[in-house]
């Protein structure tokens, strides 16, 4: 596949899985709060496409996109949403905690900003072993209001860790606009003061996000040092949690969303893929989705004896 085809496939896969989740949601088979990435897929897709399997990404509670983009198994994802034993967390995680350590899809925490230092710690370990791997800390604009964000930038810069700080700036923390929470929309400038290279992608462009990540990854592969800071400005199409639109509540306007809706990352990258190839890609993903939901429907719930397993490791 060409790079454009891969990126299109990744975004399409995330979009369509979340649309199917939304379709099933009213049936109450997924009893878990879902935080959708619809409209924001370019960030996870662009970054993860530039990473290798040996690289790691620590995401947030909006964990569907990172899990899928990094190569997480879709059957295990949907089974997890359904609370089934075959889920990626055996029914003990839910939508906010999707991980797959075998492909480097980690993170998934409901407490904003908590996973940022984990990416630095993971990077510390790979650096200590002499591996030229990259670890990504993905977080939103709300997370930078937590002290741990600045603490981690400081430590990662001090130790020159191979970590990419990836800000997915969608301009809102739940219903609060960024400028009601911070004096200026200049987070990347603040990061730059820690002495790391900074890239800002203003328009949510998938290729721009991919290129910025690929450049950082190449630096590490060639024996260079981190950290790096990438800000991707993007827009959340759906409500903070749940499957609905929320224009009617008045905290943000549809006018504000319009330019983002018009440059839908899926359409932009899709336009660069030949129509016949696009159809092939879509058919493959539709089959995967159908299979994943059928699997989730039929695979069993965990036995009640599972309640007390894995509290402690042997």
């Amino acid at each position, binding site marked *: 596949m060409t790079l454009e085809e891969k990126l299109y496939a990744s975004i399409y896969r995330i979009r369509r899985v979340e649309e199917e989740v939304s379709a099933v949601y009213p049936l109450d088979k997924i009893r878990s709060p879902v935080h959708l990435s619809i409209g924001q897929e370019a960030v996870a897709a662009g970054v993860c496409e530039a990473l290798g399997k040996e690289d790691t990404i620590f995401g947030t509670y909006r964990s569907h996109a990172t899990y899928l983009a990094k190569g997480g198994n879709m059957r295990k994802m949907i089974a997890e949403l359904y609370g089934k034993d075959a889920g990626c967390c055996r029914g003990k995680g839910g939508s906010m905690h999707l991980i797959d350590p075998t492909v480097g899809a*980690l993170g998934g*925490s409901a407490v904003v900003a*908590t996973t940022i*230092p984990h990416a630095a710690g993971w990077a510390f370990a790979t650096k200590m072993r002499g591996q030229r791997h990259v*670890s990504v800390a993905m977080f939103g604009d709300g997370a930078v209001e937590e002290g741990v964000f600045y603490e981690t930038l400081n430590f990662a810069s001090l130790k020159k860790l191979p970590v990419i700080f990836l800000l997915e700036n969608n301009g809102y923390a739940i219903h609060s606009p960024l400028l009601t929470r911070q004096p200026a929309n200049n987070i990347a400038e603040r990061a730059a003061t820690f002495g790391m290279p900074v890239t800002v992608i203003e328009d949510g462009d998938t290729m721009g996000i991919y290129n910025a990540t690929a450049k950082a990854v190449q630096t590490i592969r060639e024996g260079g040092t981190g950290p790096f800071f990438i800000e991707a400005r993007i827009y959340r199409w759906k409500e903070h949690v749940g499957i609905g639109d929320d224009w009617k509540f008045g905290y943000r306007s549809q006018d504000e969303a319009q330019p983002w809706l018009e440059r839908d990352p899926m359409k932009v990258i899709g336009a660069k893929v030949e129509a016949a190839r696009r159809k092939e890609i879509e058919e493959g993903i539709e089959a995967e989705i159908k299979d994943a939901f059928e699997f989730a429907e039929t695979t069993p719930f965990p036995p009640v004896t599972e309640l007390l397993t*894995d509290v*402690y490791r042997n």
Partner: protein
Amino acid sequence: MAERIISYAEAIREATHQEMERDDSVITFGLGVDDFKGIYGTTKGLLEKFGPDRLFDTPLSEDAMTGVAIGAAMAGLRPIHVHIRMDFLLLTVNQLFNIAAKTSYMYGGSLQVPLVVRSIIGKSWGQGAQHSQGLHSLFMHIPGLKVVAPSTPHDAKGCLIEAIRDNNPVMFVEHRLLHLFHGHVPEESYTTPFGKARILAPGSDITMVGISYMAADCLRAKHLLDQTGIKAEVIDPISLVPFDYDAVLESVRRTKRLLVVDTAWLNCGAAAEIITGVLERLNPGEHIQVRRMGFAPASCPPTKILEDAFYPDPASIALTAYAMCNDGKTDWTPDYKEEKEIAEFRGPF
């Protein structure tokens, strides 16, 4: 073979040294671990031996550094994160409660956090409100964390090695005054299993369970009680989670009396938990007398006259035990002089 006598602090250092030598994945970090004082000597010499990649000072960022430890542990390292006072752990609890404790369970057993968090409870010479807290019960509350608080140099070494090899986050609770204690410690590496209490001294009239430094004070109280003919049994639980209820039950079935002494407050504390756990395990018809002792319900005052009143000491423990064995009578004054490690302790830290 002659007994090898070293201090508790030296036992901690030796355990760390031996494990870092045995396993390349063990790293040690925390504020001041690489300075000339080396956390009361517990990390001294390790920088020279293992280098700054495996033993390093950190920024004053307990929250992030706990997260860094967790991320490194997820990646397969075995970090030891050191805090010179337990009070500072309050800056770590989001990471420890929300992530470290839950990782194994919340991710369906696909990830683990083999992490040791060392912290030291301060006492005496005016440590005051924020250098003296025993906060172990907070950590006992959270499933997924283990909590150990050995009182002897022998068990300090064995428990730390066990903690480093454990695949779970382990809260390793030390006490500043225990660091000064000396005892028999074998030179070779060994582990002290968690969930196994140690009877420090046998007795038949009352069971005294002493947590951390209070195990030492319970032993002193036992010697004071010898003057009255009361034979006290002293148990060091060593590990609080998991807890060895069998050992305490076996003891109280003989003595019918249980006094738990903690180096912490009593409200929702370890002593309350231990007593409840014992009572719940007794059979119908089995009755025992219970009491608990710990910090006075105030912040720790630095001025000595109030500080002395704030803590249980061997005399107050002995008198409480005496009353439990004599229908509540307190017609006895233990002949007690302040212990050497308190009388001679000088700060500033």
